[in-house]
């Protein structure tokens, strides 16, 4: 079963008005369960819009979006996916543990179950000792790990991420990429990941979706079949060849 099926999707903002923007046009994309897909492209190519259509935070102007073989909105109502953003979007007024428990509260989990689950998730992102801290006491990278833990807390089959590491420094970023791949390996979750960074896209994903702007289209889909990522992968010639391949595809797009 495909985790995501996007068929003939277009998105027009402010239709019929002077500030009308054709954000996406003719998008077809299928994502298999367990895949790690990145969406990459220049600003204005609609990659974040496509992510929000999959999340049913926006609705398409044309075409259909299916998540887990049901309409995207139903998938949202069924809480089939977890989401993380560029800003961690943590609630300052909740402790780290309570932030992770927020989706569980909304789903009506009991207090004991929530406690246990948030403790597990904090261990997963290696922040066990920070449960009772407030987000403002954590570094940017730690906050982003809490956001990922929150997105995964209810074991969604799909994880949607909108440039989650965009605001982090290079060192933290690479570390977070490894963390994310480890979590992905442990949970088997399908991931759709929006990024600006070519090496990040190649390092993380099974397939890189290259998008072109005005209106946003899928220009190329590149298999990043590099096998298991290790510390050596980033220095591998195969890795560099893939980076070049994506870069060339992006250059064609910018034309």
């Amino acid at each position, binding site marked *: 079963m495909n985790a995501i099926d996007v068929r003939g999707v277009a998105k027009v903002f402010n239709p019929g008005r002077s500030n009308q923007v054709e954000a996406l046009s003719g998008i077809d994309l299928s994502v298999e369960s367990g895949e790690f897909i990145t969406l990459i492209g220049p600003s204005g190519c609609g990659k974040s819009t496509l992510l929000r259509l999959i999340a049913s935070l926006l609705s398409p102007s044309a075409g259909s979006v299916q998540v887990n073989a049901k309409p995207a909105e139903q998938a949202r*109502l069924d809480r089939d996916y*977890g989401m993380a953003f560029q800003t961690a979007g943590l609630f*300052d*007024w909740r402790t780290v543990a309570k932030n992770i428990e*927020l989706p569980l509260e*909304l789903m009506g989990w009991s207090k004991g179950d929530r406690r246990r689950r948030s403790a597990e998730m904090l261990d997963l992102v290696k922040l066990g000792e920070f449960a009772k801290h407030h987000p*403002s006491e954590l570094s940017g990278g730690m906050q982003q790990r809490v956001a990922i833990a929150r997105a995964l807390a209810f074991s969604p089959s799909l994880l949607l991420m909108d440039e989650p590491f965009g605001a982090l420094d290079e060192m933290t970023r690479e570390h977070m990429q490894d963390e994310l791949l480890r979590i992905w390996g442990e949970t088997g979750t399908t991931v759709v990941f929006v990024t600006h960074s070519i090496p990040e896209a190649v390092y993380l994903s099974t397939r890189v979706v290259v998008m072109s702007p005005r209106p946003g289209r899928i220009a190329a889909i590149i298999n990043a079949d590099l096998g298991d990522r290790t510390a050596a992968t980033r220095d591998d010639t195969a890795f560099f060849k893939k980076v070049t391949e994506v870069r060339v595809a992006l250059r064609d797009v910018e034309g």
Partner: protein
Amino acid sequence: MNALKGLSAPLAAGVVIFGLWQGALSLLDPDGFVLPAPSEIVGALIDNWDEVYQGTRITGFVVVSGLLAGILLGAAAALLVTRFRTANETITPLAVAVNAIPIIALAPIFNNWFGLTSPRSNQAIVVALVFFPVFINTARGLVRVDPSQVELMESYAANRWRITREVRIPNAMPFFFTALKLATSLAVIAAIVAEYFGGRQDALGPMITQSAGLTRYDEAWAAVLAGAAIGAVLYGVVLVFERVAMPWHSLIRSHREEP
């Protein structure tokens, strides 16, 4: 210990200011009605303790009741306008229009409505003056949320009320308390000036006008001092509530080293 440390600098400044005030007056020796010395004001306060105490109770009641009603109305209106579009289109322009009126200038007119010796008109003035800063600030806090927090809640299929409760209201708290700090001093000013025009005659406002009319300036200053005490106590109460309601906020401030 920290509280004592925080207080020592302003206390020292106060002692210096009052010392200079007292010293300058004994040196220059102007006529008593220009500016009484701090010692004379304290003397007048002790001599007229019963009247000042009674006045503080009367004015304090007007301030506190008006403040509470104004805060409740302001916060409720802010919730309404940020929740319902029609409420926003009706209440917001109305509130802005009311705020353009120099409300304190309405005191004689309100006295006519509620009766010259009734405290109701003074309460109404306080409510009207407190309402606006609470309304505007709280509404801003309810609207100015991190968009990704709202998207996150929508991704959890949370309804609008739940989003208000989990995101908007906590986000509005710092704005709300900033408004309350403004509102406490506004409320004291509003009550005392309104009392110049009517209401109970044993309140602080009439005590100031009558003492000044009889050139008993030390007594007038004693009543002003009592008004300042009401404002200071209420400000302190707001600070305590702020700490209790937003334990996370002092944490943020200490980490970002804001004033």
